[in-house]
């Protein structure tokens, strides 16, 4: 063999094959015309190509939907987005530069967000029609917000939850919120102050609403009772005057009452000195002194009260200065 290789040029393999074939002794009885070739070196072109078989894909359901279908039946309840059920050309997601947003198919963005496809206006209308027979008629006299506020000052807010899960209970359903306008409660000056201190930050000054929320009991009924109890207790507690409340000092006051303060005494003393009728007054006399005899005293009272109650600012100080000048008979400030 080695001799043979030497004599022949490399690359002339074909001849060797033929030589080898001539020497074969295997009988071929199947195909008379052509012998099967034993392909030892496995040439590429002789290898069999695998045919990829593709399954037949049915067209998208969304494309087959009729335009006059009942959408409520297609999408009856809350469900995460499914592209084949929604015949809308929706796109959502990150937009690469110069491209359009990704389409609805295999789009996680669309599946993540909650949808309201089950709550289309016709469906809502239909459902409302269905439950209408359970409703009673709205009282005719409660025809405006004012009337409702007047006859039902206490507002109870609860939430009902409805969902498809093994249990129909939702723990959030027990929470009860009570709202009432402070103006609707019968409170005097002291009681109002005490009530506000009792409710603390549950009172909103802007809307004048007191909001009490209870979630401590396991049932809604219990929480409702508790909220009512809270309101009742706070109301009646506000009306009681305790012994220690007499010890309230001027510094504990929540707003500045000019009549109780040193400022009034200063003014009265000053007035007496000006008019030359100095006298010693008791606390009570100071408090009940009628200032209408003093010129400009009304404005002065207002200016000082403003200064304390609204806080010091350029305007309040200027107003105070102006009234003091009037009171003392000094010329106006020149600018």
């Amino acid at each position, binding site marked *: 063999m080695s001799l043979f290789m030497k004599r022949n040029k490399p690359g002339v393999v074909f001849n060797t094959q033929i030589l080898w074939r001539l020497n074969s002794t295997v009988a071929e009885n199947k195909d008379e015309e052509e012998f099967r070739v034993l392909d030892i070196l496995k040439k590429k072109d002789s290898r069999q190509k695998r045919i990829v078989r593709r399954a037949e894909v049915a067209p998208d359901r969304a494309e087959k939907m009729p335009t006059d279908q009942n959408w409520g039946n297609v999408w009856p309840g809350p469900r995460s987005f499914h592209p084949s059920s929604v015949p809308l050309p929706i796109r959502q997601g990150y937009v690469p530069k110069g491209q359009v947003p990704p389409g609805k198919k295999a789009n996680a963005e669309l599946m993540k967000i909650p949808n309201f496809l089950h709550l289309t206006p016709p469906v809502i209308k239909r459902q409302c029609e269905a439950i209408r027979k359970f409703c009673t008629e709205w009282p005719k006299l409660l025809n405006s917000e004012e009337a409702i506020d007047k006859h039902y000052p206490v507002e109870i807010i609860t939430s009902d939850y409805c969902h498809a899960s093994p249990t129909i209970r939702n723990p959030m359903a027990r929470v009860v919120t009570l709202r009432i306008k402070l103006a609707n409660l019968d409170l005097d000056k002291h009681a109002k102050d005490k009530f506000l201190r009792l409710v603390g930050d549950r009172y909103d000054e802007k809307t004048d609403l007191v909001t009490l929320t209870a979630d401590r009991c396991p049932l809604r009924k219990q929480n409702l009772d508790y909220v009512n109890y809270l309101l009742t207790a706070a109301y009646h507690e506000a009306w009681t005057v305790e012994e220690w409340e007499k010890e309230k000092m001027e510094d504990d006051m929540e707003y500045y009452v000019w009549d109780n303060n040193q400022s009034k005494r200063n*003014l009265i003393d000053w007035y007496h*000195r000006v008019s030359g009728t100095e006298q010693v007054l008791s606390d009570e006399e100071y408090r009940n002194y009628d200032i209408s005899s003093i010129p400009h005293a009304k404005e002065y009272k207002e200016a000082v009260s403003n200064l304390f109650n609204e806080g010091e600012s350029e305007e309040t100080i200027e107003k105070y200065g102006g009234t003091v000048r009037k009171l003392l*008979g000094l010329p106006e400030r020149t600018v």
Partner: protein
Amino acid sequence: MLIRNIRYACRRYSQAVTFRTAESSPAEHNSNHVGLFYTINKDLCKQLYGHGGLPKSYMKQSKTFAETVIMVRQPALDIIACMKASDLEKPVTKYVLYGEEGTGRSMTIAHLLHYAFEEGYLIIHVPWVSDWLRRVQRHKEMSNSLTREGMVDVPLDAAAWLLHFKTQNQHLLKSPELKISKEYVWSKREKTEAGAPLSELIELGISRVKYACDVVDAIVHEVKHLSNTGKFKTFVAVDGYNGFFNSLTRLKTPTKKKVAPEEVTLTTSILELTKGDWKNGVIVLSADMIANPDEQNKQIFPMNLLYRKGFNHLDPFVPVKVDRYSEREFITCANYYRDRLWLRGPPEIEAELKLTSAFNPYKFMEQCAPL
């Protein structure tokens, strides 16, 4: 040499019309003089502000400029107008100056002091309250009061103030009308007879420092009494008045107890003076943020600085705001600095300084110093 002098004179004359006023009597100042500087006589300056009264940095600058000038500004004119219009037979009128730091409250008081001096007021001037209550040298002279239980004396400060009072009022103290109404007994051997001149009391306070605080108290009472009887009119000026209403002073007793302002005898004397129960007087006070450094919310308004306590004590008072420079005042001030060769360089520099100093007089002064 001659040419230089002429040039110098020309320069001065050419600019003098724009920023200076020859009217050196504050009583004659009116709105036409707003923003202009007037010069105070040197001797008078020494008498009025020799022991304090002008801010330290301003003193330094005046020394550099070899003259003391004060700008005529609106707040001072305002108060002068009020003083002219007010009836001295009525109880004392109180003015409280307030404003940002460095806007010139102390300078307004200085201007008013000059006015009061010219008008023949007896001047009671406390240059800076915190000097008594907050500035503590290594050995602040302090002692427990002999006459008032539980109170603290600061005798050296009191004596220094008596000296200040004496210098400011030296011309008035000569008059024989200033007599003491009652007898003061200081010790077994020392007493001041009723009918003795007020200056004797002051001399005693200065020489016997031990009694200085009590002398101050006596003077306050005497001055109130004398004013009430109409012997003369009194001008009270207290700078940094709100220092009296701080919760604590920096003073400490030998037992290391911190002292509250109302436990210092001088405080009670001055507070007695600022009550509204006397007449023939004018009170000008200033509320200063620096005087209560413990204050957290930085507001310039008087009620915030005086607290409820101080407001109740003073009310009703006239708040007077001292504002920053107006455009015109700024220009005259810059012209003055140029005249003094304090500010040099191109004219654009003024526009820049306007922005950097934000029209604040003190800042403007500070920023001009290195230019």
